[in-house]
């Protein structure tokens, strides 16, 4: 693909599959084999099941606040799938699909949302940073990881996520500028899901799109249809290649939509019309990707039914395995602030334990 054909200043948007699942850009169908396509589809199924289950657990009072991803699967899965084994992923907090593709176990993810810090401790070799709650702050970490790669002469690149809301933050500006100046090998992906909680994308900025903000840093930027798995995958792959070849960072705006609530504490009917949601429901990345697979005889419907059943079972079992078994160990609250606990912390821990032992 050629970035130059999609200049954000001309408000171009890059698409391969339109929302009906039709190929609009035949040359750009990525050369993925059937196994790969099926894998991507399976990841979509997986994320949606994880989301749905989490929401239903939450309604049952079994799960805490949860931030759903429905509608943004292509933006997440398509981008993460373009990464190489050694690449780093720097998430914001709504990157379920990307986490799964990069090998974060569901157990970690649920444990995190269930309120235990061990959810952020990744298995060996999974180069995924913990959730970063302060909006946009993680972008600077991504830039720094890439700068270190340059200094160490390492080839891995970094893919970092931020929301449309995050683009307004000072840290966004500084992270992109540092990345540009130091040619840090980072691909910044804006998941523009049109809202920051209740705040419409239109309130964040009056620039016509978010990708054009790249101009401020002398960087390439592109708007991609974030609900189009192939467009996201291709653009990210191209940007990753550039980064790996020493051509520096890229800004990608994945134009998408959060079909659900901001989190389970949020009621989106307060700030947006059903009509708008319905329009976007037709553009669901799921529908069009499935249609493409069906049209191209890649999808076996029996496999699909079976896979769903298996995934559902796995998701339920994973949740149940942590549900009654995830209280924080008291020592863990104290133990990880420094390599060695300070005398102060030791004393506070000891005092608390002796209080507990002395009865309430």
């Amino acid at each position, binding site marked *: 693909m050629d970035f130059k054909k999609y200049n954000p200043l001309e408000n171009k948007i890059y698409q391969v599959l339109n929302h009906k699942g039709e190929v609009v850009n035949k040359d750009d169908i990525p050369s993925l084999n059937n196994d790969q396509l099926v894998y991507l589809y399976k990841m979509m199924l997986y994320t949606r099941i994880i989301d749905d289950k989490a929401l239903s657990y939450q309604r049952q009072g079994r799960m*805490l*606040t949860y931030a759903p991803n429905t509608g943004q699967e292509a933006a997440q899965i398509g981008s993460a799938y373009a990464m190489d084994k050694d690449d780093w992923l720097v998430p914001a*907090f709504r990157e379920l699909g990307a986490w799964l593709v990069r090998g974060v176990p569901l157990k970690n993810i649920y444990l995190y949302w*269930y*309120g*235990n*810090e061990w959810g952020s401790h990744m298995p060996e070799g999974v180069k995924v940073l913990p*959730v970063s*709650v*302060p*909006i*946009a702050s993680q972008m600077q970490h991504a830039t720094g990881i890439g700068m270190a790669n340059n200094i160490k002469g390492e080839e891995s690149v970094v893919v970092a996520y931020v929301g449309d*809301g*995050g683009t*307004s*933050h*000072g*840290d966004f500006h500084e992270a992109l500028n540092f990345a540009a100046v130091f040619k840090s090998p980072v691909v910044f992906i804006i998941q523009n899901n049109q809202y*920051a*909680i*209740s*705040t419409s994308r239109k*309130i*964040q*900025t009056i620039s016509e799109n978010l990708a054009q903000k790249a101009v401020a840093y002398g960087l390439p930027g592109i708007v991609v249809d974030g609900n189009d798995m192939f467009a996201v995958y291709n653009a990210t792959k191209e940007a990753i290649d550039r980064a790996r070849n020493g051509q520096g960072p890229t800004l990608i705006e994945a134009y998408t939509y959060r079909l659900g609530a901001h989190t389970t*504490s*949020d009621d989106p009917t*307060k*700030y947006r019309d059903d009509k708008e949601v319905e329009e976007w429901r037709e553009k669901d990345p799921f529908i069009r990707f499935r249609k493409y697979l069906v049209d191209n005889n890649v999808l076996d419907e029996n496999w699909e039914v079976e896979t769903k059943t298996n995934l559902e079972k796995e998701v339920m079992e994973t949740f149940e395995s942590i549900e009654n078994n*995830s*209280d*924080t160990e*008291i020592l*863990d*609250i*104290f133990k990880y*602030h420094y390599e060695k606990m*300070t005398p*102060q*912390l030791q004393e*506070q*821990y000891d005092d*608390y334990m002796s*209080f507990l032992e*002395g009865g*309430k």
Partner: protein
Amino acid sequence: MANTLNIIQAINQALMVEMKNDKTIVVYGEDVGIEGGVFRATVDLQKTYGKERVFDTPLAESAIVGTAIGMAINGLKPVVEMQFSGFSYPAFNQIISHVARMRNRSRGQYNLPMVIRAPYGGGIRALEHHSESTEALYSQIPGLKVVIPSTPYDAKGLLISALRDPDPVLFWEPKRIYRAFKQEIPEEAYEIPIGKAKVINEGKDITVVSWGAMIPDVQKALKLIEKENVSVELIDLRTIAPIDRETIAQSVKKTGRFLVVHEAPKTLGVGAELISIVNEKAFLSLEAPPTRLTGFDTTFPLPRGEKHYIPSPERIAKTIMDIVKY
């Protein structure tokens, strides 16, 4: 008229009545407009006063505070919300370098009548950064006032005072008890003076100072030791900066014993300042070491650990008894 409200409703009402009285007040921040705030503190304000005076902003705390400085200089009274106190840090530079200093820098030419509101504190089973108690960070900055209410009545009266104060006020709201209980309070505007602590219970054996969401927990602790024949003087600090040293010193001179309970970490918390004040003003009256019972010197834990963090009524009760028996 009867008007029975919880803390969040009292805050909303304070804004509602005072915006009517004072046309210079404008309210803005992330999600405070259409949505009325993630905790509903600003609900219906936009409907009532229009989008000019109540509006949503881009996601950028430094600019929210930084533009408020400009507004205050230019004759308005901005009331801005930090969605959680843990997200006030991107605005830290504007707060410490300008909000706190503009009056002194300009030798009184530019005062900044503005209010920064934020929910603070833990215990609502929230994600990281949503549970912290940051009063010590801000209370040490010359030029700021820091206020924390613990009841609906105080919340409304203190917020109205903050809105009428010529100096910048940080109004930190105890989110854990936003909806914990209701009180009957006046519908109209009334003030509670900033800088004055409130003696909730008089007592003669020990002075216990606390504020915000810890007050109900201390009260539960007092229930637990009701039968122990200990007379506790309970003081709600209410204003963290400037501290009402007089009320505390008087109390400790009477009781000779002192406990401060707060949910923020221990080291360099407000408890340390109170103990120093007690030493400075009532040293010769002390019959036991002035003591602090606080959160640990750790990050506030995620929900599966949070019950350990906030001093429980049981720990408070035990600590009071330990001091009294000293």
